C-alpha cells in the first residue's frame, strides 16, 4: 500500500517520532498527575477537619466541564508555543543535521514533505495536545470529586455529567486544530522562514520570523500612517481571547459554558479572514516548497 494518504500518514508519524514519544510523555504526565491527586486527596483527608476546609458557599452543583475548559485553555497556550516552535524548526533542522540528503534520496517530493509538516503542525500536534488536555482534566476531576466527597459534598453526579463533558470535549477537539488553521498565516510564515534561513545561523529562522514583522509593524504607521498590521494581529488572537474569557467565567462559577462556546466556532468559520488567512498560509507553504527546490543540500 503506497497511496498518497498512507505516505502522508507515514511522514506525519515520522515528524511526531522526531519530537519524542507522545504516548510515553502522556503516560509520565498522567502518572505525575495521579500522584499529585493522591497527595492532594491525602492532605484533604488529614487537614480538612483540622482547618475546617469547606466547599465555597453557593456552589451547589458544580459542572465538571468548567474544569475541562480551563485545562483546555491552558494546554492550548502550550500547544501554540509547541506548534510555533515546530514550524520554525521544521525545514531548518534537517538542513542543519544534513538529514535532508536522506529525505531527498527517497521518492518523496518537496511538496509532500512540506504538506506533511503543515499537517503535523495544524492537525496532529493540536489533536495530541487536546488528548493530553482531556486526560489531565479527567484525572483532576476524579480527584476533585473524591476530595470534595471526603468533606461531605457529593459532587460526583454534577461533576461527571456526560453530556456537558462530551460537548466541551467535542468543542475543544474542533477548536484546537481550527485555531491553528486560523493562525495559518503566522504559522506558514514561520515555515517559510525555516526554509529561508541559512543553516549556518542557528537562530536565523527565529530572528527572521520575529524581526521582519516587527520592523513592518513599527514602520507602517510612520511611513504610510496606517495600523493594518496591528489591527490584524489583534484580530488573529480574538478567538484565543474569547476562549480564555469563557474559561475564566466558567471556572469562576463552575458552570457549563457550552452554549457560549459553539458560537465562537461559527464566528470563526464564517469570517472571511479564516479563508483568506488559509490562502496566505498556503502561499507561504508553497514558497517554502519553492525555496527547498532551489536550495542546495549542505556540503
Amino acid at each position: 500500500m503506497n497511496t498518497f494518504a498512507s505516505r502522508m500518514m507515514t511522514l506525519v508519524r515520522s515528524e511526531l517520532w522526531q519530537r519524542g514519544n507522545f504516548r510515553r510523555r502522556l503516560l509520565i504526565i498522567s502518572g505525575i498527575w495521579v500522584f499529585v491527586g493522591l497527595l492532594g486527596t491525602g492532605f484533604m483527608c488529614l487537614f480538612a477537619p483540622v482547618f475546617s476546609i469547606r466547599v465555597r458557599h453557593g456552589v451547589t452543583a458544580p459542572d465538571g466541564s468548567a474544569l475541562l475548559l480551563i485545562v483546555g485553555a491552558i494546554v492550548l497556550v502550550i500547544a501554540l508555543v509547541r506548534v510555533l516552535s515546530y514550524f520554525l524548526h521544521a525545514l531548518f533542522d534537517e538542513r542543519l543535521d544534513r538529514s535532508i540528503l536522506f529525505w531527498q534520496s527517497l521518492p518523496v517530493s518537496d511538496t509532500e514533505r512540506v504538506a506533511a509538516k503543515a499537517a503535523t503542525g495544524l492537525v496532529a500536534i493540536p489533536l495530541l495536545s487536546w488528548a493530553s488536555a482531556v486526560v489531565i482534566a479527567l484525572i483532576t476531576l476524579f480527584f476533585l470529586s473524591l476530595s470534595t466527597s471526603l468533606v461531605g459534598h457529593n459532587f460526583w453526579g454534577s461533576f461527571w455529567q456526560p453530556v456537558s463533558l462530551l460537548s466541551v470535549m467535542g468543542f475543544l477537539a474542533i477548536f484546537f486544530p481550527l485555531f491553528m488553521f486560523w493562525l495559518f498565516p503566522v504559522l506558514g510564515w514561520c515555515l517559510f522562514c525555516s526554509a529561508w534561513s541559512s543553516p549556518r545561523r542557528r537562530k536565523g529562522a527565529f530572528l527572521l520570523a520575529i524581526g521582519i514583522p516587527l520592523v513592518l509593524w513599527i514602520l507602517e504607521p510612520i511611513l504610510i500612517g496606517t495600523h493594518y498590521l496591528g489591527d490584524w494581529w489583534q484580530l488573529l488572537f480574538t478567538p484565543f481571547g474569547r476562549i480564555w474569557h469563557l474559561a475564566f467565567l466558567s471556572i469562576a462559577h463552575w458552570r457549563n459554558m457550552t452554549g457560549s462556546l459553539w458560537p465562537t466556532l461559527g464566528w470563526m468559520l464564517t469570517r472571511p479572514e479564516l479563508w483568506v488567512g488559509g490562502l496566505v498560509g498556503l502561499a507561504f507553504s508553497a514558497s517554502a516548497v519553492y525555496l527547498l527546490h532551489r536550495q542546495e543540500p549542505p556540503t
Partner: protein
Amino acid sequence: MPVLVETQRLTKRYGKNCVLEEISIKIDEGSIVGLLGPNGAGKSTLLKCLLGLIPHEGQCRILDQDPRQHRARLMQEVAYVPDQSYLPLWLTVERLLQLVANLHPRFSVARARHFLEGTEIRDSQKISQLSKGTRVQLHLALTLAIDSHLLVLDEPTLGLDITRRAVFWKQILSDYCDGKRTLIIATHLMQEVEHLLSHLVLIDRGRIVLNQPFEGVLERYCQVIPRPGQEAALRALNPVSEEQTLGQPVFLFDGHPKSELERYGTLHRPSLAEIFETATRRRAS
C-alpha cells in the same frame, strides 16, 4: 545497450567558481561506472546534478527523465548513498526500516535484514547511538535493499574498516550486480574499485580527463620495465611518462602496440592512480 544516463555540456558554477565544466557523458544500462578523481575534483557535485539535487546549466537525463523536474519519481528507480551517512538520528533502526518500507515501493525489509545479518546493529537501537562506521553499514544495507535500476554511491566505504569494505564490495558484486542494474561509484580510493568497473570516468578540477570503457583503458595504457640496455629504445617510442621505481626506470605508454613494447621489456598493467596522474598531467600541458 540503452543509454541510462546522459549529460550534455553540464556545467555547475558557484559564483565565478566553475566546479563542473561542460561535462558530457553517456552511461549504458548494466554498466559499472567508476567516477574517479582526487578530493575536490567535482565528483559529488556531478552526482548531485545527476540526481536533480542541485540546479545546473546544460542537459541531464536519467532513465529518460529530467532529474530536476521529476526527482521524487526518479528516486523510485534510483538508490543513492551520499558521501556521509545522514540518517535521521532520532529514529530507531526498526522505525527507519518501517519508514523506508512505507515510502519506497521497491524497498524490501527482508532484504535489508539480510544485509544487516552479521552486524552489531539491533532493531531497538537509536541511530544516534550507532558509531559512524555502523551508521554507514546501516545506510548501505538500506540502499542495497532497494530494487533499483541505478545505484549511485558517493564514497560509500568512507568510515568502514578494511574488512567491512571487502564485505561490502563482495555484496555489491554478488547481490546487486546482475548485468541489468547500473552502478555509478564515485571515489578517490581508486584501487578499491578497479576490479569492479566496466567503464571509467576520470575527473579533475571539474573536467573529464578520461571517459572510456575499462577494457579500452587497459588496452590503451601499458607500463614497461625495460630489459638492461633498452631504456634508450623505449625513450625513442615517446612514452607518456618515465619514472624511477626502486632504482629502475618504468615507462608508461598510451596507445602503443603491446607486441612492439614486449621486445624491450616486461609489460605491466598500470594502476588507475598512475593512469589518472598521467591523463591529468597531459591535459594540463
